[in-house]
């Protein structure tokens, strides 16, 4: 049962499947040492397809693997993100059909404020058959969830989770967009519950995921928010109503999605971790959004401008109800003068963009310097190798010359006495061969000498280029330093503005 044995090994040695996992040569050695306790190399080679399937299935929750095996070198593999989106899957229609043909296998339950749908096993088993051994590069879990959304006509708000092997769908009842009750899963201060898990339960996992050497939380949040701000929450297109109603859910959904791609844990637990992350990094997340909004205002985007100007602190009347709009206020509690706020932001953005441009050029220059240093390192051993060849070949020539010269002398002797003798013809042949060999040896020496000469010429160009780039790097470092100083001095004006924008983004329009 090679497949089972390998899966067991991976579960115990790798632990959780991760998209950034790298299989080293040490892993390779350890793996085969373990395998050879029960199977010899021949058996493993014969059934390598079973080993491959075990690896593929283990990493299936996070990505597709490209797997190579050679008897001499063992296993090499790499994990790639899935390429096909669920909506483009060739299996989608069939899976939707399976769900529709097995409606009896769907249980509808009512649970207080929300309804629940439970998908029973027969549907899952039929779907497993459909997806068995598919060559399509797709996350099958996401595909099944997507198919469920299509077949059952679910809303975006409805959440599909997988508990052990069951798919459970929470149907959220529609609510008033301005009734902004915090999502249970997310940030209610009253609620210390994260999808049924406490903070203590989640904290250890959180620390493990984001510990040193693993993923970095700042990088993770930036990556999540970058995606959201370019797609579902772009300040170029959304309005404040949409933002207040949907932003937290969108963030929660995207964090959950990225965690699911990265780690293998039960979905409902991941939803809990996402809620925990949002609460723990609530300010950071809103700061990223604040800076993004400032950027679009700087680019004079009309929608972003309108979005920012909304935060006037005024009162709105809707359906005979009074709502108070959050307000952009200074630390002293006074309403910001929007023109001067935007003026300061623009000035700050100018410096920021200039600084980023210099940093970019600096990074390019540093890369070029690294390349040149690599070339220099490469040249030295090559030259030394050529010099060694010259030395050794010259020594060989010296030794061979003795034999060659003796042959020449003998030939001359025979030539003068018996031109037509057998001995003469034999010696003539031998001498021709010896001459050829001598020429070959001299050829090797000449070639090596020419190679050294061209290396010297190349060397000269390389050192000149290095000098130029080093000078350029010095200049750019100064430029970056200058812009950094500028931006730091601007920060004293900018920080309170960012803080005000963060506060309004975290706040909500409320009933008066």
């Amino acid at each position: 049962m090679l497949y089972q044995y390998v899966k067991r090994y991976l579960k115990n040695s790798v632990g959780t499947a991760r998209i950034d996992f790298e299989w080293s040569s040490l892993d390779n050695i350890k793996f085969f040492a373990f395998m050879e306790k029960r199977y010899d190399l021949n058996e493993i080679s014969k059934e390598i397809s079973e080993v491959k399937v075990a690896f593929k299935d283990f990493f299936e929750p996070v990505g597709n693997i490209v797997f190579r095996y050679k008897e001499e070198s063992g296993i090499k593999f790499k994990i790639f993100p899935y390429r096909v989106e669920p909506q483009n899957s060739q299996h989608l229609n069939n899976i939707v059909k399976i769900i529709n043909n097995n409606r009896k296998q769907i249980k509808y339950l009512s649970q207080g404020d929300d309804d629940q749908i439970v998908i029973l096993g027969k549907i899952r088993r039929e779907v497993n058959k459909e997806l068995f051994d598919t060559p399509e590069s797709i996350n099958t879990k996401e595909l099944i969830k997507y198919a469920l959304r299509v077949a059952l006509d679910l809303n975006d708000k409805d959440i599909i989770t997988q508990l052990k092997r069951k798919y459970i769908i929470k149907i959220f009842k529609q609510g008033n967009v301005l009734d902004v009750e915090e999502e249970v899963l997310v940030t209610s201060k009253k609620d210390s519950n994260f999808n049924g898990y406490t903070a203590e339960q989640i904290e250890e996992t959180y620390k493990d995921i984001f510990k040193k050497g693993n993923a970095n939380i700042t990088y993770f949040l930036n990556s999540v928010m970058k995606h959201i701000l370019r797609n579902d929450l772009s300040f170029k297109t959304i309005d404040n109503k949409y933002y207040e109603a949907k932003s937290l859910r969108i963030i929660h959904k995207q964090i959950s999605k990225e965690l699911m791609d990265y780690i293998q844990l039960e979905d409902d637990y991941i939803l809990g971790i996402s809620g925990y992350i949002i609460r723990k990094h609530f300010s950071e997340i809103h700061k990223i959004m604040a800076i993004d909004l400032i950027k679009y205002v700087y680019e004079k985007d009309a929608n972003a401008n309108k979005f920012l100007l909304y935060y006037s602190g005024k009162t709105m009347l809707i359906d005979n109800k009074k709502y108070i709009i959050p307000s952009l206020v200074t630390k002293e509690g006074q309403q910001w003068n929007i023109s001067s706020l935007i003026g300061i932001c623009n000035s700050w953005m100018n410096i920021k963009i200039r600084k980023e441009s210099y940093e970019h050029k600096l990074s390019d220059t540093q890369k070029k310097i690294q390349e040149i240093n690599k070339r220099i390192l490469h040249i030295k051993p090559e030259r030394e190798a050529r010099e060694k060849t010259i030395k050794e070949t010259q020594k060989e020539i010296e030794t061979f010359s003795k034999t060659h010269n003796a042959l020449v002398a003998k030939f001359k002797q025979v030539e003068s006495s018996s031109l037509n003798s057998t001995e003469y013809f034999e010696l003539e042949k031998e001498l021709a061969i010896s001459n050829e060999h001598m020429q070959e040896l001299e050829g090797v020496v000449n070639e090596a000498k020419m190679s050294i000469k061209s290396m010297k010429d190349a060397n000269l160009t390389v050192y000149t280029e290095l000098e130029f780039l080093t000078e350029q790097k010095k200049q750019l470092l100064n430029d970056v330093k200058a812009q950094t100083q500028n931006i730091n001095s601007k920060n004293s004006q900018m920080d309170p503005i960012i803080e005000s924008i963060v506060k309004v983004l975290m706040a909500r329009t409320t009933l008066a």
Partner: protein
Amino acid sequence: MESLKLEATKYTPEINLNTDGVISLVGKSYPENTFEFYAPMMEWLESYFDGNAADTTVINMEIIYFNSSSSKLFFDFFDLLEENAEENTIEINWIYDEENESAEEAGEDFIEDFEDLNIKLVSKSS
């Protein structure tokens, strides 16, 4: 409904599905088309648990060797049993030769994956 029996082959186990509740799978499992081979067994079980189950169902599994696709099918098999375990009394005996470590470990893995099922490991001497 009627009992069903599938004879063993070089690549597939002997399968006995009895309406009195005694079910057995004995032999090796590495068929060419796993889902196709086991489809009759899965359909029979679905029908059995749909109002035809005996008071107690005992399943004896003695699988000496199985490949990856069989492993996935067995997963679905246990999944079906687990689904019906709340309303039915189901006992599963995973029987292995005491010298077949792989078979023993496979049984342990299934027990871990299906905590709600009553699976017993039964060792037998060769």
